[in-house]
């Protein structure tokens, strides 16, 4: 019961230690991880957004510059040449040749379109002379403004392209100089813009049509992005950064900027997972660190606390043992004093009682009482009083030897000699009880500094107890001496018998004064407590191992001076 309670106590102690260690270790770790992650995440977002903003801004400028530059080239033609000069295929061919030489294959062809939409002159690979553009969408817009850049369209040639026009405001006959810009050249400006693994860019016009070739394999419904127009105008720097989920539920990051005076939108799209892959990796690393660290903390907390609890438990047990011994010693000492007092105080009354009985006995001797019928009974009673008085005397005598040792002068003793002496003394009595005493004495034992008469008393007590135990059955008493292997620096004397043994319930009390299992009048219950006291005083230890029907085994350890 007490054991269970103690076990519980240690379990809860261990649990408390584990919980506090884990709490104390986890709290700062979690705090640090979360704060750092949050900071890192914020910084990373800012960095990513800034990067995208810059990217869009740069490309916006680049594309605008590209368009303006091309426009400027054509405008130069319009300003510096007259209609007559321009309305000449050869001249246009030459101009186109120079332009291509300067700017690569950006310029596809050149044409002069008059007010009716007729292309009056043309230079280029597509043979589009004499084509009428009056019905084309761009023509009206181009005619109404000084310069015009069209959206991408298929036109007569059936391939995507866009044109730039400059209106020559010749007084009599205004005309347009039209140049076709190679779609691929323009497209590469945007298409080369790749970010990470999934980031790409495209351009939309106000009708939601692609102005660049969308990257293969990615389907986009341009109409979904129409609301960007409004947002962009409101955004700071006219660049909008936003996150949206697309129809596949993929979270995407969009950076949007307007182009061409707000006609087009440059959209850079990247999957958020890709954009923030570093962040994600960081999170995974943190999680792994957290898991491993946490596991390590938990393991250490459990391991250390259990080790500590084990140690505390051991210390507690040791302390308890020591306390027990102190209590035992204290008990012995106080019982010793008590015994001495009682012995002395009882001696006098007993002496008087015995004397009075003797006196009555003396008086009975007188003749006038000799005839009394009860004389015999009186004498028997007096004899009994005398006997019991002597018993009291014996008890007090033993009590006193328990309290104070008769001859306690110590000298160097060879324990084997002592054992042999005692065995010889007891042999006769043992024979009478059909008990054999065997000895197994290790030779050359070191000398021990003890009082021989006290040691004799101890051995005699143990032998007498064994003899009493085997009174009816007979048996063997084995006495052995050797240098102890369990307790270094001690000699161990073992007295064991083959008697009926000691019930387990009696074992803890066996050294208690006045504890006896012998019938009334046979034992005082002081023998073993006297032994205990004597051995304790020698700085030694005595213990007993026994079980019913297994015999008893007393071990005495006595320290010797090591040379």
């Amino acid at each position, binding site marked *: 019961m007490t054991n269970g309670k103690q076990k519980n106590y240690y379990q809860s102690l261990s649990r408390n230690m584990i919980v506090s260690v884990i709490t104390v270790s986890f709290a700062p770790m979690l705090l640090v991880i979360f704060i750092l992650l949050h900071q890192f995440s914020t910084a990373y977002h800012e960095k990513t957004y800034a990067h995208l903003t810059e990217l869009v801004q740069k490309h916006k400028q680049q594309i605008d510059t590209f368009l303006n530059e091309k426009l400027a080239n054509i405008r130069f033609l319009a300003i510096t040449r007259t209609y007559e000069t321009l309305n000449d295929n050869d001249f246009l061919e030459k101009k186109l040749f120079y332009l291509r030489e300067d700017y690569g294959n950006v310029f596809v062809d050149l044409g002069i379109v008059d007010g009716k939409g007729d292309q009056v002159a043309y230079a280029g690979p597509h043979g589009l002379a004499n084509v009428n553009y009056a019905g084309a969408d761009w023509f009206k817009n181009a005619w109404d403004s000084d310069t015009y850049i069209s959206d991408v369209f298929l036109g007569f040639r059936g391939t995507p392209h866009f044109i730039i026009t400059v209106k020559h405001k010749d007084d009599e006959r205004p005309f347009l100089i039209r140049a076709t810009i190679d779609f691929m050249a323009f497209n590469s400006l945007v298409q080369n813009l790749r970010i990470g693994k999934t980031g790409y860019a495209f351009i939309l016009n106000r009708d939601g049509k692609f102005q660049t070739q969308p990257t293969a394999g990615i389907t986009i419904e341009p109409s979904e992005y129409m609301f960007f127009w409004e947002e962009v105008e409101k955004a700071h720097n006219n660049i909008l950064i936003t996150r949206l989920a697309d129809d596949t539920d993929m979270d995407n990051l969009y950076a949007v900027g307007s182009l061409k005076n707000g006609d087009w939108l440059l959209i850079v799209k990247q999957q958020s997972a890709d954009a923030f892959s570093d962040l994600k990796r960081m999170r995974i690393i943190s999680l792994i660190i957290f898991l491993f660290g946490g596991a390590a903390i938990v393991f250490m907390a459990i391991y250390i606390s259990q080790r500590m609890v084990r140690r505390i438990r051991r210390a507690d047990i040791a302390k308890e043992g020591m306390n027990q011994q102190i209590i035992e010693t204290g008990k012995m000492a106080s019982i010793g004093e008590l015994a001495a007092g009682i*012995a*002395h105080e009882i*001696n006098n009354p007993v*002496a*008087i009682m015995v*004397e009075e009985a003797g*006196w009555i006995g*003396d008086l009975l001797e007188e003749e006038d009482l000799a005839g009394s019928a009860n004389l015999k009974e009186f004498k028997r009673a007096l004899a009994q009083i005398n006997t019991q008085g002597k018993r009291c005397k014996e008890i*007090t005598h033993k009590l006193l030897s328990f309290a104070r040792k008769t001859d306690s002068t110590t000298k160097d003793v060879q324990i084997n000699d002592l054992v042999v002496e005692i065995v010889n003394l007891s042999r006769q009595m043992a024979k009478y009880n059909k008990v054999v005493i065997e000895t197994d004495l290790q030779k050359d034992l070191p000398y021990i500094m003890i009082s021989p008469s006290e040691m004799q008393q101890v051995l005699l007590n143990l032998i007498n107890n064994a003899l009493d135990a085997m009174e009816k059955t007979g048996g063997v008493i084995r006495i052995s001496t050797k240098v102890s292997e369990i307790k270094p620096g001690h000699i161990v004397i073992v007295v064991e018998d083959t008697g009926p043994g000691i019930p387990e319930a009696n074992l803890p009390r066996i050294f208690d004064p006045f504890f006896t299992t012998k019938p009334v009048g046979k034992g005082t219950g002081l023998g073993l407590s006297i032994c205990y006291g004597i051995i304790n005083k020698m700085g030694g230890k005595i213990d007993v191992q026994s079980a019913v029907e297994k015999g008893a085994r007393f071990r005495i350890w006595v320290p010797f001076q090591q040379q």
Partner: protein
Amino acid sequence: MATSSIMLVDDEVPFVETMAKRLDKRGLKIIAAHSGDEALTLLDREGSVDVIILDVKMPGRDGIETLREIKKRHPLKEVIMLTGHATVETAIEGMKLGAFDYLMKPCDIDTLITKVKEAVRKKHSHDEKIEKARIDKLILNRGYD
């Protein structure tokens, strides 16, 4: 021998009384005292005491003290120490101071009688020796007259 008287000193009055009666019945003349001081006073007055049975443990002047005083004042008187077990060592100590023997309480009357008789005999033999020496001295002195 019939004239020899014994002094019994013990603070336990009933013990002394009973013991006195029993010893008296066995032909010994008993003078009882219940403390060391009383014993000394009585001894000074009573010259015929041969043996003193003296309890070791008494209130006031204890056995050892009393013994020392007796031996100082009456060196020829024999003292038997009477002791409970607790004071055996003291009794032995008393013997070193010149006590005849010691007895343990409760004591067997026969043992006591034997010891007392031995003590009386010893005392008497001492007395006789001294007497003889005196007479010899007297005769010797006379011889020179």
